[in-house]
């Protein structure tokens, strides 16, 4: 049994905080629905709130940041990552 951090988003669903990354002074939260492992979401901290991203460019940029940070878990090998899923 693991202790994890959760947030409840505006849609009422509860998400596990999978990772948190600071990028250009903004903290991004990478979330996965606690009841559905294919339901991911990303939010950024804004004061005391979590808000959605501005556009696709921001989404893809912060996804790249996530990939780069976590890549070494799989030794940077995309094929091996896919095979491990």
């Amino acid at each position, binding site marked *: *049994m*693991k*202790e*994890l*951090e*959760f*947030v*409840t*988003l*505006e849609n009422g669903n509860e998400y*596990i*905080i*999978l*990772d948190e990354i600071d990028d250009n002074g903004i903290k991004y939260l*990478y979330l*996965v629905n*606690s009841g559905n*492992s*294919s*339901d*991911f*979401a*990303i*939010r950024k*901290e804004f004061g*005391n*709130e*979590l*808000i*959605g*991203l*501005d*556009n*696709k460019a*921001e*989404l*893809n*940029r912060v*996804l*790249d*940041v*996530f*990939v*780069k940070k*976590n*890549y*070494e*878990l*799989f*030794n*940077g*090998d*995309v*094929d*091996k*990552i*896919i*095979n*491990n*899923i």
Partner: protein
Amino acid sequence: MDKKVYENIYNVLEKNSIGNEKKCPNNRKKKKVILKISLGMLTGLLIVVGIIGSSLIKLNNNYYEQIQQIEDVDNNDVERYGYSIINIQEYGKLITKNMLKEYGFDNYTINDDNYRHYNYTSDDYKKIINFDERYLYSLYLVVDDYTINEFTKSLGYKDLDDYLIKNNYIDDEGKASTYKWLIDYLREMAKIMNDLPKEEGRTK
């Protein structure tokens, strides 16, 4: 998983994440839970979604528009470019596959992990003239362990680990680290892509 599955996850992620109307209090709570899937697996899943999502957006566009974007930036810091790892990797993989083909190395099989196993030895690869070692990581992404080791032997190293250690790609324990190599590779490849002549970039 089928690529379609990742694409669907990406689409859900996009729908879930974009929109300034999405707001909620940053109220966190801690709970002890039993996960059906490990956090490592979930992280791996999001990595693949990120890479595939990125390719959906970027590689489905005219690839040379991406080259243009890379040309438009003025430094070699990969983090700041805004293009994805897959752009760099796919470009490098294409170059190395073409190089092997041009030298007549066409006797290969594809193993279960989708890597190419070339039926050649280090002596065979010695006929390659002036191989640019910055592309060695690209080759590493294409071929199996046997092939990469034979290839690095042709460059004068004992094997891949020997190459990594001699080039200071080592972890905190002094062991060969492909991760350190990856970071250096991305930077070097970014420079290469940045230096592509515009006309060459558009006609390839």
